[in-house]
């Protein structure tokens, strides 16, 4: 081994290790983001109740704006951080929840409904968003808890199930799910672009409260 070979090996090690560390950190942060966004979405009645108690309109407006900004930024962050589920190399190398990509699709669908509908004032849209978030959370937490976080202590049949739920021990499924996720993202993205081009970026959804 000469200096160049050793240098190359160390560089490879640093880069691969840092990349896996970054992806591992993202995967570890995602459950927190999921919990926070679920909490904020389901805490809507509490916020509305509090808004009613404000004596000053400015305080009520600010609370509402901060609430929706936080809630929606968390949803956007969830989608963005779930981008790694689209990369075949990443899902087949790292220990990720098998259906994490589908969870990201649910989050993206929520954003699409928020763009085209009015979940804050339309009950049907709100219910749809709540269902999508619930299903998305299941898609994320079941393989995360029973796969990624259980496979070191599980044995026998449970270990088989646990390995099935982890992306790098079930790479074929993980890559296939990644492709389906990519296709769904592309379709929903195209719908969003079509809608925005059609409306020219204006708020075209019917104003349910003004009626």
């Amino acid at each position, binding site marked *: 081994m*000469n200096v160049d070979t*050793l240098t190359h090996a160390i560089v490879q090690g640093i880069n691969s290790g*840092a990349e896996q560390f970054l992806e591992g950190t993202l995967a570890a942060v995602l459950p927190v983001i999921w919990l926070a966004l679920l909490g904020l979405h389901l805490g809507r009645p509490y916020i509305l109740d509090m808004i009613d108690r404000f004596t000053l309109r400015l305080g009520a407006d600010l609370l509402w*704006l901060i609430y929706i*900004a936080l809630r929606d930024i968390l949803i956007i962050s969830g989608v963005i951080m779930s981008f790694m589920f689209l990369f075949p190399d*990443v899902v087949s190398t790292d220990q990720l929840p098998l259906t994490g990509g589908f969870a990201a699709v649910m989050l993206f669908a929520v954003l699409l409904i*928020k763009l085209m509908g009015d979940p804050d004032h339309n009950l049907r849209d709100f219910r749809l968003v709540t269902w999508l978030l619930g299903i998305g959370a299941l898609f994320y937490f079941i393989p995360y808890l029973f796969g990624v976080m259980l496979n070191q202590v599980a044995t026998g049949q449970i270990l088989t199930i646990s390995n099935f739920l982890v992306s790098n021990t079930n790479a074929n499924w993980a890559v296939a799910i990644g492709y389906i996720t990519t296709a769904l993202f592309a379709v929903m993205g195209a719908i969003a672009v079509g809608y925005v081009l059609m409306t020219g970026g204006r708020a075209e959804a019917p*104003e349910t409260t003004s009626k």
Partner: protein
Amino acid sequence: MKPDDVATAIMNSLVQGGSQWLIATIVAFLPVLWTMSLMLHLGRPYVLRTLRRCGLRLGADIWWMSYLLMRDALLLLTFGLSWFFFEPNIVASMALPITGSLAAMFLLLSLAVKLSRRVDDDVRAYRLSTLFLVIGATLYYGPLVFAVEATSQGYLSGFGQAFTSNSNPTVALVLMWISLAGVGLVAAWLFVRALMSANRSMGRRLKKEQEATGVISGAAGGGE
């Protein structure tokens, strides 16, 4: 191998590895910025809907201002960090999406539309800016997902080789120079436009000031 050799190897690795890691991290962060930029740009109807419901002008202004700042700053930041795609050494040596430079050029075109027309009031300009942004994002995501991040997939190896910059450096460099020329043209156009606009607005102001001075001196002369 002597201890000195190991020390040299570690030192070289820290320098080379650190620089590669920095670039790789920025490249890995770019999809985040692209997605965020797209979402904020496309989410305008939702932001407007929320804005309409603000009871007070102050709340609405804060909301709109925060949205605009985030959206446009992100676009600018994404373009700034895409500068790696215009550096020949990096393009030829690192695994980057081959059309990354074209994506950056389309991003600049979208920014140029924003700078030259009132995108938030003019529907056509908004559509044009959206189109540039979507084309740029597609050029970025396609090779990233199916080439750069799919080296483990044998059936994608042909696509991967064709669309990764360091495995197809000739095409990558040609695309880079074309995009760089495009970026140069757009930047020059923006520069000339800004200069002419400043000349016009300053000329108008100077003329007004001169007229005002003339009126005052005329009035003072009449008074004497």
